[in-house]
């Protein structure tokens, strides 16, 4: 390996240069983040209405619309959860707020819903596809009809197998692809809406009824409780509970939060607004139009599994145009629903990983694929369970829908409770967003809005326990089973768990050794550069200061960690104090994610950190070099050493002034090289 750079004295100080990359340093704009969420959350438009119709009759669009409005509150809850920046989504938030047991319960419930989201989406996509083929066969006069249940199961399994393979390989679907799918869906939605309004103008229409007609199975155990049936509000809550499956995928927002670009908080709000608006129009609006245009008997008998196809085929106009519209809906539906299958695999894998990282699961779960570097045991398990669920459902979307929503509701109950608790526990932590309706009392914001939301969620979740029998039995059973597995595994793993807990989370980082520093900075293309030297993952105040003030549009931020190699300059105690680079860069990436700003992490092996910093700054043509204060030596000796080294390394005039800064808790020592 070549030595990276030579000092003016002809001595090599930088022994090895490694450029580090991670997927987590690629940040996306708010609209792409919204598209990723909507590919999952928006896909419920294709099945939620049909399932709700079968549960409580033609009043379903009102409740789907109500659930979509309610999703606005849940998005605000996610905004506050994300603003706490507790990495790991709902599971970590619950652990932080309510402790380990509640977190394990919430995670078990959420995994149950993740596992169901895949099959429900995959099977629904199969129904839409089969519906289209059957419409075509009917229009062409073939007199042939494919069995929807068989086709939907077969297609569902194929989609699941495809994404299982992709996830094992670690191939992530790009946010650009999601954005294209959503843009196409928006165009289809717009066309469908216009055509629907023309149809209404030509044929006339009535608003859907508001009376509830629960099927026997939709009443569940509540059918045996007389008082529940006499109170109108309870009926409305029951209908709402049967419609909450329309929320499927909303939790994806906490998964993509990490990837949203600077300014993070503002972009997160924009993404939430976009998600809310789209879901309201797409899921709420199209479900409403379907109920207005499709005759109720056709929904109940023919289109309950592919409601939007029914809408297309019920529009006014020639059949071939309607078939074309249906084809567009099917393309859009298959793309979104397949995306939801993928997100369910990614989400459950990520969640299981978070749990495994806490030492709750044995090493077997975290086993890394030798070739692809993915946690393939977890992916195998989830995909296998999903395939079994698809087979057991025999293509019955209603059954899957009835089983769904246990996890998402209870997980939200835990999450909102945790966030309420954190209002006290982390009262001093700055929040970019707070759920509305708060009363300030001394240093606390009493979360009246959150308490009301918690009450609403708890009420729906409790009512669902009595009405959604399949969800209650399967959800409780699965959650109890998974919770038992977690608890048992944690106990068996106790010794190892403690070690892993102390080790903490490690970011997956790809390390590429390059020939020299010049090559390490070859991809930097912004006109200005700041080099931030890091050493201690617990001391990144200076990096945070840089990230909170930098103009990311015109400045590249290089984060340099100099790992000591054996040399007279490094005494043994200093070498042994050197921190593992993965730990350092995990903290750096966490910080970069917090601000949604990309950084260029570079690791150099050097026998003198000050030489390495000076050389790297010189090669990178940095205008600013920022260091944290050393608790051992203090800022003044550090800056003295840095300016001396700079002088020794410099062998030509500077193209521009370079400022050297040492930052710590609100203080700064700096020096400006002007020549």
């Amino acid at each position: 390996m070549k030595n990276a750079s030579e000092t003016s004295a002809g001595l090599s100080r930088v022994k090895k240069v490694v450029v580090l990359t991670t997927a987590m340093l690629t940040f996306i704009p708010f609209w792409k983040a919204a598209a990723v969420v909507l590919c999952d959350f928006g896909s419920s438009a294709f099945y939620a209405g049909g399932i709700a119709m079968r549960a409580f009759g033609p009043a379903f669009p009102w409740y789907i619309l109500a659930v979509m409005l309610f999703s606005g509150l849940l998005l605000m809850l996610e905004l506050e959860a994300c603003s706490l920046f507790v990495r790991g989504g709902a599971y970590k938030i619950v652990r932080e707020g309510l402790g380990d047991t509640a977190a394990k319960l919430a995670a078990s419930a959420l995994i149950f819903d993740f596992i169901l989201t895949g099959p429900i989406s995959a099977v629904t996509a199969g129904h839409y596809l089969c519906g289209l083929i059957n419409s075509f066969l009917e229009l062409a006069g073939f007199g042939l009809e494919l069995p929807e249940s068989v086709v939907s199961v077969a297609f569902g399994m194929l989609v699941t197998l495809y994404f299982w393979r992709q996830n094992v390989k670690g191939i992530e679907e790009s946010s650009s692809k999601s954005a294209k799918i959503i843009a196409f869906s928006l165009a289809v939605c717009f066309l469908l809406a216009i055509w629907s309004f023309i149809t209404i103008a030509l044929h006339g229409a009535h608003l859907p009824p508001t009376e509830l007609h629960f099927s026997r199975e939709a009443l569940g155990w509540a059918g045996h409780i007389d008082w529940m049936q006499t109170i109108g509000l309870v009926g409305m809550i029951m209908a709402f509970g049967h419609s909450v499956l329309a929320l499927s995928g909303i939790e994806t927002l906490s998964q993509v939060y990490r990837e949203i670009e600077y300014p993070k908080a503002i972009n997160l709000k924009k993404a939430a607004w976009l998600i809310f608006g789209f879901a309201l129009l797409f899921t709420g609006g199209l479900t409403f139009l379907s109920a207005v245009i499709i005759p109720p008997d056709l929904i109940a008998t023919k289109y309950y599994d592919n409601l939007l196809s029914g809408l297309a085929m019920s529009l006014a106009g020639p059949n071939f145009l309607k078939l074309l519209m249906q084809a567009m809906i099917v393309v859009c539906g298959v793309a979104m629903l397949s995306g939801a299958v993928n997100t369910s695999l990614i989400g459950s894998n990520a969640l299981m990983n978070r749990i495994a990282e806490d030492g709750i699961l044995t090493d077997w779960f975290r086993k890394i694929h030798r070739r692809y570097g993915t946690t393939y045991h977890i992916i195998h398990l989830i995909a296998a369970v999903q395939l079994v669920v698809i087979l057991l459902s025999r293509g019955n979307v209603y059954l899957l829908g009835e089983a769904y929503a246990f996890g998402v509701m209870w997980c939200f109950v835990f999450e909102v409770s945790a966030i309420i608790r954190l209002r006290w526990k982390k009262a001093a932590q700055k929040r970019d967003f707070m759920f509305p309706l708060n009363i300030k009392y001394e240093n606390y914001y009493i979360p009246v809005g959150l308490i009301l939301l918690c009450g609403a969620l708890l009420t729906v979740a409790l009512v669902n326990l009595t009405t959604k029998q399949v969800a209650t039995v399967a959800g409780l059973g699965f959650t109890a089973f998974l919770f038992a597995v977690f608890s048992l595994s944690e106990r068996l793993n106790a010794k190892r768990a403690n070690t892993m807990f102390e080790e903490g989370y490690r970011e997956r980082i790809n390390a590429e050794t390059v020939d020299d520093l010049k090559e390490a900075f070859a991809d930097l293309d912004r006109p200005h550069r700041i080099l931030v030297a890091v050493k201690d993952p617990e001391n990144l105040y200076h990096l945070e200061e840089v990230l909170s003030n930098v103009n990311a549009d015109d400045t590249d931020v290089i984060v340099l960690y100099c790992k000591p190699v054996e040399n007279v300059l490094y005494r043994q105690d200093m070498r042994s104090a050197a921190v593992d680079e993965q730990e350092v860069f995990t903290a750096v990436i966490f910080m970069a994610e917090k601000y949604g700003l990309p950084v260029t992490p570079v690791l150099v092996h050097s026998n003198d950190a000050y030489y390495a910093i000076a050389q790297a700054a010189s090669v990178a043509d940095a205008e600013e070099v920022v260091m944290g204060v050393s608790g051992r030596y203090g800022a003044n000796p550090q800056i003295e050493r840095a300016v001396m080294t700079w002088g020794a390394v410099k062998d030509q005039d500077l193209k521009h002034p370079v400022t050297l800064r040492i930052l710590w808790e609100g203080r700064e020592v700096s020096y400006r090289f002007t020549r």
Partner: protein
Amino acid sequence: MSQNEQTKMSLGRLIAPSRVLVADKYPGKKELIEALVQAVCRDYPQLDPAYVASQVLKREEGISTTLDTGLAIPHARLEELTDFAAAVAVLRQPLAGENELPIRVMFLFLSPAKPTFFQQHLQILSALAETFKPEFIEELVSLQDSREIAARLVR
């Protein structure tokens, strides 16, 4: 005027021939620092050599002041000073201790402790490191005596 030119002027002001030591061999870094402190204190009666030496040696316990060019710049910031003071030692034989880089030139550098002088203190440290590159050090080592070295330093 550039930082380097300013420093050369400062060097001329800082280094008198009486404060240039030339030696074949020195027993150790501590002794050499003490000898340079003595040389400075002769021209600054307000300074107590023992105290100054203790301050410089205390600073030496921290981050190294020796560069791999062969230049060492032991330094201290003192309340008693109102201007910069320095002394230089040129060694015919490199001085090397355990865990230390070999020293060919030692530049003892004392600054006023007032914060207003700190930027200039840094500027001089940087310019010294830039000036005392290996070729220049070799040239100094080859010179005959302290007068010649002092003259070369300000040229």
